């Protein structure tokens, strides 16, 4: 965090060949795992979210009663809240695995935090 006493001539990471890391099987594996989770879940949550204003604008089906005077619109809306919390929780679990893979990749290329400028 303090960027004062780091030696300026330390340029280990500047000459670092990022294309080699990017092409390495371990980094590719990390990206594949990330994509496999992030792409479907982003499509899912944005889809369910955008569908909601469309349904309530163009149809009355969600006005039907769920229990008593609580209609399905409220159930859908709160469902989006629960969806958010569930996806956040799942992501936190997945991300722990991403962290492990990322660390492994960095280790493979002899990266040390101290080399940061």
């Amino acid at each position, binding site marked *: *965090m*303090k*960027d*004062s006493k780091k030696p300026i001539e330390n340029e280990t*990471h500047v000459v*670092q060949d*990022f*294309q080699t*890391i*990017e092409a390495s099987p371990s*980094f590719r594996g*990390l*990206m594949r795992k*990330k994509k496999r989770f*992030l792409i479907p*879940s*982003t499509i899912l*949550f*944005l889809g369910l*979210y*955008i569908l*909601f*204003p*469309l349904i*309530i*604008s*163009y149809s*009355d089906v*969600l*006005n039907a009663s769920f*229990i*008593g*005077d*609580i*209609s399905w*619109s*409220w159930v859908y*809306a*709160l469902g*989006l*809240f629960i*969806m*958010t*919390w569930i996806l*956040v*929780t799942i*992501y*936190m679990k997945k*991300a722990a695995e*991403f*962290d492990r893979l*990322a*660390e492994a*990749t*960095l280790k493979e290329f002899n*990266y040390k*935090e101290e*080399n*940061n*400028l």
Partner: protein
Amino acid sequence: MNPIVISLFLFIVAITLVITYFAAKKTNTASEFYTAGGGLTGWQNGLAIAGDYLSAASFLGIAGAIALYGFDGFLFSIGYLVAYLVVLFIVAEPLRNLGKYTLADMINSRFNAKKVRAGAALSSITIVIFYMIAQLVGAGALIQLLFDIPYWIAVLLVGIMMTIYVLFGGMTATSWVQIIKAVLLMAGTVIISFLVLMKFNFNIFDMFTFMKTATPHGADYLNPGVKYTMPLDTLSLMIALVLGTAGLPHILMRFFTVRDAKTARSSVMWATWIVGIFYVMTIFLGFGAAAFVGQDLIVSTNPAGNMAAPLLAQALGGDLLMSFVSAVAFATILAVVAGLVLSGASAFAHDIYGQIIKKGKVTDREQMLAARYASVGVAAFSIILALFAQSLNVAFLVSLAFCIAASANLPVIVYTIFWKKFNTTGAISAMVTGLVSAIVLVSISPSVMNPVEGAAIFTGNPIFPLTNPALVSVPLGFIGGWLGTLLSKESNEKKYAEVKVKANTGGFRQL
């Protein structure tokens, strides 16, 4: 003005000044000024994000909107919460891994071009100014109502307080003001919700049944469609809400206050729970206000419904609770505007002065000095604008800020992280197209042009039909970036490999 209000009000001012005093001692370098030295923990930053995000527009505005329009008011709550998934999945971690102080840092980690930095700084400043005027105008009107003092004194008061926090305490003071505000706001909301539910013997079904007959809207109150009747308008608003958050400079800046991507991630998790629970409770605030205050009194006190929550507090808990809620509203305003000043100042002092004019060759002292001058400048400029903007509709300024954030900032962020071919021309054209289309479309929309005289800034038929242009301007931002990229032959795969590795591993970053 009753003595309880004054003492609670002074109490909040005193606490925040004590915080600022201690924070000032810890604010000696530019990094400490902009990011509190990157030393916040996940829960601290999570609370601070909630404190930064739950503005008076959220607390007072949504409670009022639900009180007046029932289900339609709750749409805001949904959009504002789901937006955090965009922040978490797409923006937070790469931003922390690639940037140092500002959004422009992150985009420039790939392009290293002054024009790109200038574009990002410009859109950040534009968003901050619009958002800030909205907050200050809202704050002025609110404090005028709560404490019965003239509008201009109210604006000056808030303006001076926010300048003190930022000027002396930098990000440390700002963060702690936001954390304390978030705790106070949650406490106030829980108390009111509890009292509302108690009136219904904690039976949610009874509450809904009661609401069916509690307002002039009858059973429609519980269904969508009371306020938003144009499908495309509703859709457009929802898009701005969900995509805008991930481009708001004062929210993005919060991710630089933690040490790494892992902590950035856990702070979003904390924020999502806090913000989500708060938004669920907006139902009780809104329903309670409609049931126990009544729409007539809410509208006659403030036509936009902004006084619904304080009036509800009065109805349920008398002067004491009303005073507490007013004090919380005041703390809310202070926390949000302080965050805004700081993010505007960082765009000026770090991006424009430090990186563009001085080409990065500034000492830490010069950087600090510039940041402080910029804070005063941003604060003074927005106070002056707010004094003249008293009659402006606040809701439209906030929706404009969200729309610019979604149209100008989000496309360039997404392309920078995910698109190999994306280049300098693409980055500039994405930002310019998004920014210009959002501003132009809003200025010819029903928010600015209304056939009814006095209802908007100009009298006349709107040229563009949507109140919020996100449905058009966000795709335009993406198309602008795509076309710009294709029109230029430049491409740097080596640099993209570097950005990709840094963004996804958290290694090799500038500390």
